[in-house]
């Protein structure tokens, strides 16, 4: 009797399938995702997209209102605001992704250690996390920056630690749930090693939470960095960050050129809003228990 080969089912590509679902079920979140990608694109290709250099001055064209030549106008020393916004996006992308990446790694390490092992380690780390979360983000950032000084690496490390430690609580909660699942007990009973269980059973199941956490952290980091730059404690000039464009000497000239107050804040709001609704949509699709909260 000859064996009849079963027809192969078309292989489902999880990434494509997930995004099809996102556009179908969460159109607003999908729009947020598109804006997020556009922001990433602008940040990565700022050098190519920017019509002028970030610090290219033209004293003859100072404080010009928005026009075809200068879409967002020019500032008090004749720099093109659009170009500075694009270079600002580049810095936001660098800081946002690096700090959110670091925060996610810290959250995973602390969350998995506390959630899986529990006991005295968990107790001690959680009391530290409690104390850490007591301080307002901005106050903690200001104090640490006053000690280590401003600069991209410092800001990435501080923001990474700040959000990483706080986010570990979410991963911990998720790991505690997974630890009690039957498949984890089964792996333990057949003698699988702890690193094996963590790598192949706990981590893959915690990934949806990690993805959502990373996405929302990018928005939070961008906002925090802008706040620091606004206070003059962020990335030092002449680098054009969105926060610093709203403060410093430029602030005095906003009364003569109100457009200077619009573009950076608007970009910041749109990007963070887009990331938030994208993060919300991801959470709804990846973790149905949290839907609508």
């Amino acid at each position, binding site marked *: 009797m000859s064996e009849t080969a079963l027809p192969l089912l078309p292989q489902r590509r999880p990434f494509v399938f997930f995004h099809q679902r996102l556009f179908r079920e969460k159109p607003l979140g999908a729009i947020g995702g598109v804006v997020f990608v556009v922001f990433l694109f602008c940040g990565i290709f700022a050098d190519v997209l920017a019509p002028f250099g970030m610090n290219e001055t033209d004293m003859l064209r100072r404080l010009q209102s928005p026009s075809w030549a200068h879409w967002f106008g020019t500032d008090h020393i004749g720099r093109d605001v659009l170009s500075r916004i694009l270079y600002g996006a580049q810095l936001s992308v660098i800081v946002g992704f690096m700090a959110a990446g670091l925060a996610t790694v810290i959250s995973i390490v602390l969350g998995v250690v506390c959630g899986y092992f529990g006991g005295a380690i968990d107790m001690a780390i959680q*009391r*530290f996390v*409690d*104390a*850490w*979360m*007591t*301080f*307002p*983000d*901005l*106050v*903690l950032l*200001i*104090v*640490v*920056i*006053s*000690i*280590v*000084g401003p600069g991209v690496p410092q800001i990435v490390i501080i923001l990474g630690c700040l959000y990483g430690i706080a986010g570990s609580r979410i991963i911990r909660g998720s790991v505690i749930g997974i630890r009690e699942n039957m498949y984890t007990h089964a792996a333990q009973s057949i003698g699988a090693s702890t690193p094996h269980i963590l790598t192949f059973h706990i981590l893959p199941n915690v990934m949806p939470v990690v993805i959502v956490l990373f996405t929302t952290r990018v*928005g939070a980091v961008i*906002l925090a960095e*802008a*706040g620091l730059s*606004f*206070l*003059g*404690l962020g990335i030092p000039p002449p680098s054009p960050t969105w*926060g610093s464009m*709203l*403060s410093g000497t430029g*602030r005095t000239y*906003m*009364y003569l050129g*109100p457009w200077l*107050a*619009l573009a*950076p*804040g608007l970009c*910041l*709001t*749109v990007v*963070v*809003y887009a990331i*938030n*609704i994208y993060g*919300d949509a991801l959470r709804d699709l990846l973790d149905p228990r949290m839907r*609508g*909260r």
Partner: protein
Amino acid sequence: MQAFIIRRILALIPTLIFTSVIVFASIRMIPGDVIDLMLAQNDISTGNDRAVIEASLGLDKPIYVQYFVWVGNILQGDLGRSLWQNTPVTEQLAATLPITFELGFLALIVALSVAIPIGIYSAMAQDTAGDYLARSFSLLMLAVPSFWLGTLVMVFPSVWWRWAPPLQYTPFLEDPLGNLGHMMVPSILLGLSLSAVTMRMTRTMMLEVLRQDYIRTARAKGLSENIVVMRHALRNCLIPVVTLIGLQAPLLIGGAVILEQIFVVPGMGLLLLEAVFQRDYPVVTGVFLVVGIAILLINLFVDLTYGFLDPKVRH
């Protein structure tokens, strides 16, 4: 209730210890040593003076002894002296803390009066255009940076109508109207940014409560929808919202730092920023510690209130 209060206070102790350790570690991480700053300020540079100052500050002792001495001083209300003004840090904090609390309190009133009605409406009109609009507003408030809103409020009314928010601070007891006039704009802005989370929480809790059996019973009795919502649903849905006030305390104080700077409110946030720029580390760490302890105490108070409101929590 007594056992609940004791349990909560005991649970606070380890967190309080870690909080003090974080602040103490930040003092020890200060670059260039506090003594260098003091020597530079007083124009002294001999090695002998340095040793004398080190001994007088107790910096020649082991680190754990320094920690306990520092904690002992704090318990006696001694947070050190400002390097620039040479006044006790506690004095500066006592002058600025009530101003920040006033700003926070006004912001909280704004946040609750915006968030609770919108949250209830959003739950009652679930999945309608109004609900989507309310949720979008809440997400938007989470995304709009308060320093940008503050900048817009300063710039545009001035350009369009030649009006600017008042920037001259007057103590409440001297001129209540003048004080509220100055505090109004920053507290509205701070309140709006806080309202986002409270609104989402109110909506979620309201949706949960509206699905409870006792609500169905109330409707079955023929009560009007207004009475069902106001008398039966709202009271139960607001209990968890109380916890949010505690959780939002860090956001409130963090937001106050920026808005105090924009609107020249001489509160703790402005004190912190000025101290950071002057490298006045005793003031920086003093504010840091007081903020941490204030938030822990607010959370304790909220927890106890929650236990009082909801008997289930006590057990």
